[in-house]
């Protein structure tokens, strides 16, 4: 039997390691394509400054990438070590995208990243450019397969439960890959990475411009970053809306939590701009509403409605009652495989099997589940509203702020007057943490909103964890917190140091176009290098 403390500790461990991993992933996703764009200019124009630009940002990219890879290993292990029942229950479906990710994407990215860093003198320009593109596509394809796997947890499709093997099995790989949730989520996440990369590059370039250092590198980087960023931010917002539209239909409990929707209402529904939701009383305190907006946002029409918590809980209770016979039938089938009556009973109640599991947390023998236990389990189907509600609003607010920032940045940069707008350059530096926070809050909305399920409506979180002791879980949690703290300190230190140091001078001055300004920046770098030595 599962110890709920172990399940909670497993959740904390997963959330912390995933959020930590997700600090490095978006930058990799975005910066890789920015490097590709920068190197494209280098190869087409042949100007040395663009090689300097690629190599400088490439160095920061690698510092970030190392930690992304390291913490990604943790994620690969963690399903097996901490979520063993989950892994065996859906491994037939969930394992496939992870393995394909290795075959198709991670190999590409990791093999070519070594070439990207070490191969400058070993390859022709065009070859090196191709390698950089491979890294960019590889890292984004990695994200694609991981998000396909994730969207199976959100809106499972292309799979069915097999009572003979007691697990979920793949029904259609193409349904899995082309699920609307997977599509929207991949593009949303990948492009959120682009935004992160853009703000990172723009912010550091602004920092140089404020100090009048490496101006040629900074102005060019800033220009490219803001163009990259403004297009990407528009994309993120579009896809965020698409994801809400798709997810709203597939995961009504998540939507209700995002919007703080306790009571079902008639169309057109108002949007809660501000509210302080109380899970206990199922009401919002101090809410500030925008009329009509919710119907418009989530159903794209004025007469659309979405169910509130009250209605969802009632539906859940009914589905739990319907799911109980399915669990009973499975218990029979476990010892007597092929028992015809049990099989018939299972198939009659199959679609609510997960809801039957939900009440088993409170009633080990589901046939004896009381109304009170069913009520508690039904209440469990509503995730924690307040953190989801606020994470969602924080993410959207940051997204809109970044759009405004980029539009202004593009105007300044296209007029080639950015270095005079010092207030804006200062703002750009302060913008650096924003996309990282937005990505983290996005993860929180998606994964907190999925609770109490690991696989939506199929497998409750409480039974997904491994059967470890509390001591083991504390041991591993402490270990991770300790190691990861050391890592982030080392990473931030090296990152800040590399930024302060700036681009390195080059001995191979072939292709040097003799621009006096470039000469200045190079000798500045050389001096900095000597100071280090």
């Amino acid at each position, binding site marked *: 039997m599962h110890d709920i403390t172990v399940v909670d500790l497993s959740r904390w461990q997963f959330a912390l390691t995933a959020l930590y991993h997700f600090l490095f992933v978006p930058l990799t996703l975005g910066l890789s394509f920015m490097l590709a764009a920068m190197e494209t200019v280098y190869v087409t124009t042949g100007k040395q400054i663009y090689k300097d630009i690629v190599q400088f940002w490439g160095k920061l990219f690698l510092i970030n990438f190392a930690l992304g890879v390291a913490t990604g290993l943790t994620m690969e292990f963690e399903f097996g070590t901490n979520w063993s029942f989950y892994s065996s229950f859906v491994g037939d479906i969930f394992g496939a995208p992870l393995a394909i990710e290795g075959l198709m994407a991670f190999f590409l990215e990791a093999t070519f990243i070594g070439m990207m860093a070490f191969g400058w003198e070993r390859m022709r320009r065009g070859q090196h450019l191709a390698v950089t593109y491979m890294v960019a596509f590889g890292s984004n394809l990695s994200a694609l397969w991981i998000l396909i796997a994730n969207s199976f947890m959100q809106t499972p499709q292309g799979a069915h439960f097999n009572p003979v093997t007691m697990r979920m099995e793949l029904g259609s790989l193409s349904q899995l890959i*082309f699920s609307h949730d997977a599509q929207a989520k991949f593009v949303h996440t990948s492009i959120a990475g682009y935004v992160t990369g853009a703000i990172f590059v723009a912010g550091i370039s602004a920092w140089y411009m404020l100090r009048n250092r490496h101006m040629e590198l900074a102005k060019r980087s800033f220009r490219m970053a803001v163009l990259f960023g403004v297009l990407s931010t528009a994309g993120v917002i579009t896809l965020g809306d698409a994801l809400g539209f798709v997810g709203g239909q597939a995961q009504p409990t998540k939507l209700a939590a995002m919007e703080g929707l306790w009571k079902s209402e008639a169309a057109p529904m108002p949007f809660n701009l501000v509210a302080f939701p109380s899970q206990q009383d199922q009401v919002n305190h101090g809410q500030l509403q925008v009329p009509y907006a919710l119907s418009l946002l989530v159903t794209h029409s004025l007469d659309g409605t979405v169910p509130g918590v009250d209605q969802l809980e009632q539906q859940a209770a009914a589905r739990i009652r319907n799911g109980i016979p399915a669990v009973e039938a499975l218990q029979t089938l476990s010892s007597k495989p092929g028992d015809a009556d049990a099989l018939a009973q299972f198939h009659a109640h199959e679609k609510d099997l997960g809801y039957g599991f939900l009440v088993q947390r409170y009633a080990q023998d589901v046939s004896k589940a009381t109304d009170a236990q069913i009520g508690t389990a039904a209440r469990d189907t509503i995730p924690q509203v307040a953190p989801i509600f606020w994470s969602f609003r924080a993410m959207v607010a940051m997204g809109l702020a970044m759009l405004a920032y980029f539009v202004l940045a593009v105007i300044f940069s296209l007029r080639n007057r950015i270095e005079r707008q010092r207030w804006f350059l200062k703002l750009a530096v302060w913008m650096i943490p924003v996309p990282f926070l937005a990505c983290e809050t996005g993860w929180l909305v998606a994964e907190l909103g999925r609770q109490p399920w690991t696989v939506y409506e199929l497998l409750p979180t409480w039974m997904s964890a491994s059967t470890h002791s509390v001591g083991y879980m504390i041991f591993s949690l402490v270990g991770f917190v300790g190691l990861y703290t050391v890592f982030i300190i080392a990473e931030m230190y090296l990152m800040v140091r590399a930024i302060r140091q700036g681009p390195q001078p080059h001995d191979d001055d072939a292709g040097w176009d003799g621009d006096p300004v470039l000469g200045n920046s190079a000798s500045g770098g050389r001096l900095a290098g000597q100071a280090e030595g």
Partner: protein
Amino acid sequence: MKTFLLFVLFMLIALIVIVLAVILGDSGAWYFAWLVGTGMIVLITAAGGAMLDTQEEQAALLKADAQAGARHG
């Protein structure tokens, strides 16, 4: 002859790309959008960088002209 063979080769590649794009666009509209969108973002970014070079050169020319004009005037 070589030109013709290259023409045939590129036409074939274009055909394959179009067929694949139609298939992908049918079942994976957002994936297709990502592919096209990323390509577009990268190209516009690259073009923006190249444009800055032109702007700088023009600014330098203008400056040089102004200086030259001042000297002659």
